[in-house]
């Protein structure tokens, strides 16, 4: 159901943009929507981060995944139980760039006995890391269209990415990889029962949208062949703040406009979706705080000073007699009546 909804949504986006192209709304598709999308993306993303940041982190709650810093002769696990800002940054670096926590992933099976068996399971990690890095490379590669003159790093990326000189224009390995890896991520959502059970439309939609973006891009580059110079004129025009709608995109211009529209949709959808994990990963208190809470006091802005314990005095008042009976020292001795008994 949620899969179907997502699929229909993506097809809907394709259809809408195709129709808009047919009726010649090129300025809307090529200028107004992309600019709006960028603004919504930047504004929405910033808003979400600030909105999270408006809630304080009341307690220092890192999840310690290794030995704490304690006695000098006990080997401290600086990465998994960091106690300084530098160590936290190292932990976060590995988390953000190499998905270290996901790398730990195991798979559990229940067999006769019952016996639970844990086996290392790196597929999700592999799928995740390949997807994200590939996505990044593809975005950076697009800088050849964003910027004039073309920045040097783009040539480097392209020569690596296009290392196999197959097809014309040169085949990019990342084009194939992203389709495969997104397909994998999609299939695991459908095939693995546990993941299928928890998946929402919000999980299928971004995958399908990204797949559609990749496929329209591939179609445009290798099969329908839009005039790249025209594409650059339009895209570079956007980024140079002098937008133009070139007339030389060729007869297959529609595929470019669909591609651009889907990318714009992704940008608009991004800040209001789970894709915000991109910003959120940096703000997770179980990862970005040092495990030094006994060494340095963490301040909670809403700590309520009026919460007091049941006081010792009240406690002694309750139990003075029995306390005396076992010889416990008292702040106030038992009253006269009691002494009279002696």
């Amino acid at each position, binding site marked *: 159901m949620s899969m179907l909804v997502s699929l229909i949504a993506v097809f809907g986006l394709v259809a809408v943009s195709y129709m808009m192209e047919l009726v010649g709304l090129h300025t809307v598709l090529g200028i107004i929507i992309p600019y709006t999308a960028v603004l919504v993306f930047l504004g929405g993303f910033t808003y979400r981060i600030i909105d999270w940041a408006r809630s304080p982190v009341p307690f220092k709650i890192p999840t310690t995944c290794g030995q704490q810093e*304690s006695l000098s002769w*006990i080997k401290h696990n600086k990465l998994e139980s960091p106690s300084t800002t530098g160590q936290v940054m190292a932990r976060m670096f590995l988390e953000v760039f190499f998905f270290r926590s996901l790398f730990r992933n195991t798979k559990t099976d229940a067999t006769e006995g019952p016996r639970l068996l844990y086996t290392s399971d790196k597929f999700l990690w592999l799928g995740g890391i390949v997807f994200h890095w590939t996505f990044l490379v593809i975005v950076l590669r697009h800088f050849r269209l964003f910027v004039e003159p073309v920045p040097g790093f783009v040539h480097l990326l392209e020569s690596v990415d296009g290392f196999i000189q197959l097809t014309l224009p040169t085949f990019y390995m990342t084009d194939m990889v992203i389709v495969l890896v997104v397909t994998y991520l999609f299939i695991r959502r459908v095939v693995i029962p546990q993941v299928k059970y928890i998946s929402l439309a919000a999980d299928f939609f971004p995958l399908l949208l990204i797949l559609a973006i990749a496929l329209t891009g591939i179609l445009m580059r290798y099969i329908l062949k839009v005039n790249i110079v025209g594409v650059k004129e339009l895209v570079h025009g956007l980024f140079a703040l002098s937008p133009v709608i070139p007339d030389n995109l060729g007869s297959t211009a529609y595929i470019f406009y669909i591609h651009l529209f889907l990318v714009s949709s992704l940008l608009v959808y991004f800040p209001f979706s789970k894709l915000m994990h991109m910003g959120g990963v940096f703000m997770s208190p179980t990862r970005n705080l040092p495990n030094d*809470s006994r060494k340095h006091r963490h301040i909670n802005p809403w700590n309520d000073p009026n919460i007091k314990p049941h006081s010792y005095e009240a406690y002694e008042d309750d139990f003075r007699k029995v306390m005396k009976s076992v010889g416990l020292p008292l702040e106030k001795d038992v009253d006269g009546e009691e002494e009279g008994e002696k």
Partner: protein
Amino acid sequence: MVKTPKPKELTENLLEKPNLLRGDQPKQSWMETPVEFKPGTYCHAAKPKVLEGLGFPNPREWQPGDDDWQLPDGWEETILKGFQERLKKFRSFKLYMDICVRCGACADKCHFFLGSGDPKNMPVLRAELVRSIYRGEFKTAGKILGSIAGGRKMTIGVLKEWFMYFHQCTQCRRCSVFCPYGIDTAEITMMAREMMSLVGANINWIMEPVSNCNRTGNHLGLQPHAFVSSIRSLCEDIEEITGVSIDVPFNKKGAEILFITPSADAFAMPGIYTMMGYLLLFKHIGLDYTMSTYASEGGNFGSFTNNETMKMLNAKMYAEAKRLGVKWILGGECGHMWRVVHQYMDTMNGPADFLELPKSPITGTVFSNAASTKMVHIAEFTADLIKHGKLKLDPSRNDHWHTTWHDSCNTARGMGLLEEPRYVLQNVVNKFHEMPENTIREQTFCCGSGTGLNTDEFMEVRMKGGLPRANAVKYVMEKHDVNLLSCVCAIDRATLSSLVQYWVPGMEVSGLHELVGNALVFEGEKWPRAMDLREDEPYDYEEPEEEPEAEAPAEATEEGGEGDV
């Protein structure tokens, strides 16, 4: 009494009935699957007297199995308002409502899911129970699109679901280790329990100890004289067994160190043996310490309720340290007590500027890692003593034990106390084997009964949740003849005992310092002897004929308080 199914039944349940863990897809979507309260799968509701005493809302006579929960009018509003307040107070909560991508990495990491196969025990789905309300009540897409956008409204069905499944989470944080964003279900469980408290959906096993701790200072509500008597009787046992005479200082002003441990160590088996170990250790090194009857509970069931109650109960530690004028605090073996002490205490009730930087009076070691809280874990303290050769130990006195080590969730994943207890353990026993690596240290499995779920009426779920732990224990028992599961947690000591009795008969459970106590060699002690601290007779020694005078401990009671025996 609720009848607990036999291990065989639970095994069949796990292996033969359809089970998501083994790949059987449930027929209904989780939102359409209502909860069912069957005896054994829920804890009893908090008694009205207890809630009244604490000033908690909606005290009444009720049970979770009731159709009508007798909630006050507008309870939905109360929850939603509480929800929004907490989003504003806790970044963790707000963030974890938003960024989960449902990758499923956490799904098979929860002991309750592994033991039961119940889909709603997958950490991601447990959190979705709350997220769906977040989306359905506060987010535009969820308000408009409803379940297509993963949203739903706050209803009694949802509250019942929360009650069921947030009392099937022990805040052990194992899921958080594997989550690529560190999403910690413990944070969400804490919030859900706080919100349930707002409308009086509490369990008695948590609220009664909270109430007791507040007034009398400990869980069981044992009054000061009972607490003192209990420890004194332990001292008598110690003297009888070892010939060492111990006089425990209570509420003593001007002592150097205040020692606080969970009250279970004073009353409950096998915790009392751990207490005997502490007392022997302090005697051995001649420590200037005191225990307190006012702050006689290290554990903090407030942390299973809401942060205000946690703060209120915890505040006794510093209050008492201040009143008695001690230099610093030494904490005994307890899991969630240390989660609170390590990650919350200083923030809530600090700064402890009336205390001094903790320094071992025996070795001179400064515990700079506790420079601000001024509270040291006894495993850190003892490890330092052993490293400096300050203890005379005979590990062969534990040769009847073949040990393995259970890392408690809170000290492992909320503190990073992993090597200190292992160092101590390996110096006081000769035989030790680790459990498989996916089940120890930061990947350790919960006992299945933490966060105030260690009640008898809940045994079925506890035994399911404890299965992964028990399984690893069984593995080392079969492979290495391990017969003792040692740990630094009072709840563990109580609950693992039931657990291994159920799944791994023949296995025993102990605290770390029980083994330290067994291994300590005193001058003038009774040795050879037959009994260990449990008054079992593992040692090859035959009591001489009835000679009461030879038994007299007089010669052993000489105060041998030097620090470097």
